[in-house]
């Protein structure tokens, strides 16, 4: 729609105050969004550092030990977290520093037309503010996904079922219990079934996993 200007009603001191406030808001919005983006960038950096410290608490660290489909699911979540974090970092940098590149002098108000520079600054401030909002949202998403992936790795079901480890003079045997009859314990191992004479057993204990324990 085309607009036109006509003289308005007589101005009062209140109108002057209103005009001054609006002018200041517009004039300072670009420095304000840059400063806000820098502050948020630093805050998010500290938050991420804290998250890394949280990862020092040891739990299961091998995704390969998770039962299907949890291993693949953790992989997808980690990839999503990486993508969200990368996009968030780029958006926060864009909000704080703008896009690197050249600009047309004519479009920046250097052609004796100051209005275009003002419009450009206002447009840049709104876009930077939008990038800041999206960047923060994606940062939080990245952290949530990261915590989910770590938690799922720690507490997700194991690929291997719990078993019994039996120490005998002939060596250690470990596997799932199949049956127990007349002092003979039958265990299921990777290569099939083995029978252990419990009368010769020296020690017996339950284990979370038998991976790599049988000779």
């Amino acid at each position, binding site marked *: *729609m*085309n*607009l*036109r*200007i*006509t*003289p*308005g*009603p*007589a*101005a009062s*001191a209140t*109108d*002057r105050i*209103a*005009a*001054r406030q*609006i*002018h200041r*808001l*517009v004039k300072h*919005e*670009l420095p*304000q*969004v840059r400063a*806000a983006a820098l502050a*948020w960038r630093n805050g998010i950096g500290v938050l991420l550092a804290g998250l890394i410290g949280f990862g020092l608490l040891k739990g299961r660290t091998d995704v390969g030990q998770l039962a299907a489909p949890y291993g693949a699911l953790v992989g997808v979540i980690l990839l999503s977290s990486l993508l969200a974090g990368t996009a968030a970092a780029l958006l926060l940098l864009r909000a704080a520093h703008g896009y690197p590149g050249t600009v047309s002098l004519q479009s920046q108000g250097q052609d004796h*037309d*100051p*209005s*275009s520079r*003002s*419009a450009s600054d*206002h*447009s840049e*401030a*709104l*876009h*930077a*503010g*939008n990038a*800041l*909002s*999206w960047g*923060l*949202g994606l940062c939080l998403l990245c952290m949530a996904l990261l915590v989910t992936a770590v938690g799922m790795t720690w507490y997700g079901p194991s690929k291997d079922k719990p078993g019994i480890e039996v120490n005998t003079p002939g060596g250690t045997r470990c596997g799932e219990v199949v049956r127990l009859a007349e002092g003979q314990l039958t265990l299921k191992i990777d290569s099939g079934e083995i029978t252990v004479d419990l009368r010769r057993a020296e020690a017996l204990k339950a284990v979370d996993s038998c991976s790599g324990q049988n000779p």
Partner: protein
Amino acid sequence: VPDDPPEPGNGSPSVPQSSTSSNEPLPFEPITRDEFAAAASGFIMKPAPGGVILSGSCPRCDHVMEFAHVTEVFRSIRLPRFRVSGRHEPSAAGWEKVSMMCTCESEHAGRPQDEEGCGAYWNIKLGPAQP
């Protein structure tokens, strides 16, 4: 006091000017006159996100100035949204009052540190070109 006409092509029609001398800029003074609003009718409008930029020569000091009339500015973060730009449209009533002030960057004697321009202010009405 003789008045210099505004420079051609700057968007302002000829208005009475006041100056202390031909070379010395006017001192700062918060002041409004009906002629200011009439002179500002010739300002150039350029689209900006959420509004328009009004530019031209200040009706009082004749210095180049601009004034942004926009519906939103950045203040703090908000929830992500999909669109930030848009052309400002007048209200349903068709016309809206816009309070303006001189925002020129030239020096004006006696201007407080937290002020801008020469002190002139006025109201205009912004509405559709076609009724």
